């Protein structure tokens, strides 16, 4: 690049707009937001029908549980609790016991977190499986586009330099101090972003689909190896729950980063594709 021509009419720093996200990425992103919201909340409805998780092929009342969300009545009413590997935590108000129309009610996840808000397993399953299909189709569209267009290679694959401990260490410190890339550097994903997005796209989301399918007796007959991969239907159900929890964690951090690094600019770039960059001007 040759920067010899100085245009006097341009004042620095100036704002330029770049095209950040292609139409397919924007479309699949928001459809994914819709699908995952419905899947999470209808999933919690389904979980509420039997709020215990096990490991292995079988597991039901009386079998050793990995996680239990329940309620027990004591003198002054019922108390909610969550029990993980023998450790019991009181959770009244949110888990185990929460208010439904002002009345403390025994239910694992509260009404505001489930679809529908009232207890209805059949309805929860209908929402869940409809959006599971939509999520799968959306995922195939995204993966196909990303492979063909070079989105994976160009935007998401970290370079060798980016993976060096020195570089990663610097990025972690920058993130911790809320120092975000500016100018030219802000045009690309940083290494932590690339690694996080890749682990969601390549690990967490496929794991959700596969563990979900493993809970289906029909799919297990078609692909018996799936059950072996996860060590049993009940293990798959537990991994489904844990993976969903990681996705929730990802969304919390993701939204926090969007807000901290420029809410409107980020959201606009995911809606219209346009992303504002501050140019500091040619270095003198």
């Amino acid at each position, binding site marked *: 690049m040759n920067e010899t021509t100085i245009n006097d009419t341009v004042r620095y720093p100036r704002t330029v707009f770049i095209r950040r996200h292609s139409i397919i990425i924007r479309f699949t992103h928001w459809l994914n937001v819709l699908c995952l919201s419905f899947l999470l909340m209808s999933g919690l409805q389904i979980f509420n029908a039997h709020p215990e998780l096990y490991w292995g*092929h079988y597991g039901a009342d009386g079998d050793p549980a990995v996680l239990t969300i329940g309620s027990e009545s004591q003198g002054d009413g019922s108390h909610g609790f969550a029990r993980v590997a023998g450790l019991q935590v009181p959770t009244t108000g949110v888990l185990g016991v929460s208010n439904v129309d002002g009345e403390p009610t025994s239910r694992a996840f509260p009404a505001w977190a489930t679809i529908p*808000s009232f207890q209805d397993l*059949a309805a929860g399953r*209908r929402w869940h499986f*409809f959006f599971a299909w939509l999520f799968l189709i959306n995922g195939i569209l995204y993966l196909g586009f990303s492979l063909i267009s070079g989105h994976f290679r160009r935007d998401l694959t970290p370079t060798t330099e980016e993976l060096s401990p020195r570089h990663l260490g610097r990025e972690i410190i920058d993130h911790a101090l809320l120092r975000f890339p500016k100018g030219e550097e802000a045009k690309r994903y940083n290494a932590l972003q690339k690694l996080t997005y890749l682990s969601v796209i390549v690990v967490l989301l496929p794991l959700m689909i596969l563990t979900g399918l493993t809970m289906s007796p029909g799919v297990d*007959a078609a692909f018996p190896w799936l059950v072996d991969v996860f060590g049993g239907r009940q293990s798959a159900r537990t991994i489904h729950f844990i993976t969903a929890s990681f996705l929730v964690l990802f969304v919390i951090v993701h939204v926090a980063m969007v807000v901290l690094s420029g809410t409107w600019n980020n959201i606009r770039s995911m809606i219209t594709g346009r992303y504002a960059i501050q140019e500091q001007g040619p270095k003198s």
Partner: protein
Amino acid sequence: MSHFLTRRRFLIGGTLGASALTLSGCDMLDQNADVATVLRSAERLTMKAQRLLQGRDALAREFGETDISPSFRVNGTSAPDSDEYAELADGQFASWRLKIDGLVNRPMAFSLADLKLMTARTQITRHDCVEGWSAIGKWTGVPLWVVLGSVGLKPTARYVVFHCADELEKTLDGSGRYYESIDLVDAHHPQTILAYQMNGQDLSIGHGAPLRLRVERQLGYKHAKYIMRIEIVDSFSSMGAGNGGYWEDRGYEWYAGI
């Protein structure tokens, strides 16, 4: 500053408002008939995809003796409370008869002893409840296709309906009586059996004595207990609420492979 406060207020108010809208909105959508129809379209897709992937004869996994659950939860009805059933149970089901009629060439009635003389199949399989839990048990019974073969199906036969002795919901019109239906693909599957034994013992009343269905590639509610009569039909739309089963009439999928 005031601009910032306004914006913040707007954001907080907007978020709270939006989530309240979403919440009540979802319940409203949930009750909407058109939405329900769209959501239900997934069931057909699921059934078509699973049938395509598994083919007609893909077997559910069979386990070893050591894999059997130490306790097998009794679900649904634990004991039908009609006088008729109590009488049958008192007589060790000696006077019980399995009636098979509908679109068959020779309507017949089988005693428990008749069924035990027929070809038997034993399978140790995982029972998956729609609620999410699983239990492994050993089931012995006569393959359904053997029984259907002896009565002979008419060419118009499409579904096998199981009429049961238990009333899961007490109603005056009998609409709370348990029934289930499967199609001929599942009816001819080698692991679809009419089980009279569980874990080497005659079926207990809790688990569906004297006879229950095992249809291993589907969820627990398809596995009808306390079978009294099998009816072969070309459509189940005139039975119950027309959805092919007790739980189906209460919103659950007819195809319960997922």
